[in-house]
């Protein structure tokens, strides 16, 4: 294979770094808004998904499957281009991005929460019932904290994916990191330097969260009923790496 010689010009990165940071700010802003909204909305959707009332359960299931089984890009385009045709209201790119990403993440988050809710032993819920806690109090104090704790790795993983998936909003002209990087790259003809920098910026944010996720997973394994530490994510990913078990 022939390697083409290439003269790197990192000045284009330094001179445009403030613009990239601005784009990163928009990316983080969208990510945080979507995470908060999804966390709030996922709880009722998960509860609806477990409802004894068929119609309620079907509505929740239909919503979840619709957003899990269609590409996020299509969902983004649909909200940005198709919804205004239906409603007659033009939705700005940023709002469209938040709506589509929230709807998408809520569907996945609701399934994670449902799985966590169902993993709480029935006896623990019945114990709450016997102590005359109301249905909401049982959900609020017994089920949600345990479901969140148990599903934390999944939820964090979904959030990391969301952070990366926000790059898609560049396709509907939202000035996020990806949009800004593309713009600078097309202006400067220095795609390699700019896109590499953009990738590094995504990595710098996502990697610590990934490490935290790994640590949480390790702690959860160490706190298992057997009390024995299982293999953690890092040591599975990096053969030979020995990670000290949490005290």
């Amino acid at each position, binding site marked *: 294979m022939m390697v083409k010689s290439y003269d790197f010009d990192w000045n284009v990165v330094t001179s445009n770094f403030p613009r990239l940071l601005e784009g990163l700010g928009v990316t983080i802003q969208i990510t945080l808004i979507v995470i908060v909204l999804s966390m709030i909305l996922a709880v009722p959707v998960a509860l609806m998904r477990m409802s004894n009332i068929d119609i309620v359960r079907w509505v929740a299931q239909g919503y979840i499957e619709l957003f899990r089984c269609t590409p996020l890009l299509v969902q983004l385009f649909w909200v940005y281009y198709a919804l205004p045709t239906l409603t007659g209201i033009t939705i700005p790119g940023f709002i469209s991005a938040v709506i589509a990403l929230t709807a998408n993440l809520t569907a996945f988050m609701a399934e994670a929460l449902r799985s966590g809710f169902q993993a709480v032993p029935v006896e623990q819920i019945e114990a709450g019932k016997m*102590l005359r806690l109301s249905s909401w109090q049982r959900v609020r*104090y017994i089920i949600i904290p*345990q479901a969140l704790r148990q599903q934390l790795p999944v939820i964090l993983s979904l959030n990391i994916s969301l952070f990366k998936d926000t790059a898609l909003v560049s396709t509907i002209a939202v000035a996020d990191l990806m949009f800004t990087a593309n713009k600078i790259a097309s202006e400067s003809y220095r795609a390699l330097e700019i896109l590499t920098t953009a990738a590094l910026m995504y990595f710098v944010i996502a990697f610590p969260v990934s490490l935290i996720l790994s640590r949480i997973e390790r702690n959860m394994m160490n706190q298992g009923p057997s009390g024995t530490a299982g293999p953690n994510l890092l040591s599975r990913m990096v053969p030979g790496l020995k990670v000290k078990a949490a005290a």
Partner: protein
Amino acid sequence: MSQLTNTGSRRRVEPASSTITASHGEILVSARGLQKSFNDRMILKNVDFDMLAGDITVIIGKSGSGKSTLLRALAGLTDPDAGRIVFDGKVVFEDEERTDDWRDVESHVGMVFQTYTLWPHMDVLANLTLAPRKRLGLSAAEAKERAEVALAEVGMSQHLRSRPSQLSGGERQRVAIARALMMRPKLLLCDEITSALDPPVAAEVLEVLRRLKQEEGIAVALVTHDMAFASKAADRVVFFHEGEIAVNATPDEAFNRSTNPELKKFVDAVRF
């Protein structure tokens, strides 16, 4: 009926202990004609059952014979298909549904389960004080005070701040009993609470129940396979066989004089 009291600026609902009128030796719970089926299989077949206030009733029988279903029906966790339940003279279940009176007396019924049902994300204090704070309106200080008393009653005072994962099986069950005591029940239902414990630890837990009966006058309905405890501490022994109460007698009558062949077979199987 619950009672509202005023403590400074905070109104709180006291447990309705004053409404329980049955005193020791009087009928606290009476069930008539209880029936319950699951998947076309009849688990309870016209069960009649009485419990006296302050008594320990040990319920024995093979798995699937209806013991736990009876406890769950008394606890309000399962509604029978037919029958009537009277608690302290009030009809609490009739015509396939709980009556309004059930709301008044339900806080007098506590239950401890076979598996450890302490909430693992809370320490012992939080496990004990959640319901009194949220349901009875007790302040944090009042609930803590009550928790200290309840833990002392089960010999677990030193574990106020422990996590359930830091406790042994026997300790967890004792804390579970203390948690049930926080609502000041008059009837404590215990569903095979010692089945996962070693015999000496199980004996300690059962001793707690015996003390509660003697010192607090709490009626205890206990499903267990511990025949030694049944013969030593029970006031009544109820033997379930295929959804029916086959024997309801004093421990002496049940274990030494009963001619019921199924009971004999069961006791021999459990003992050896």
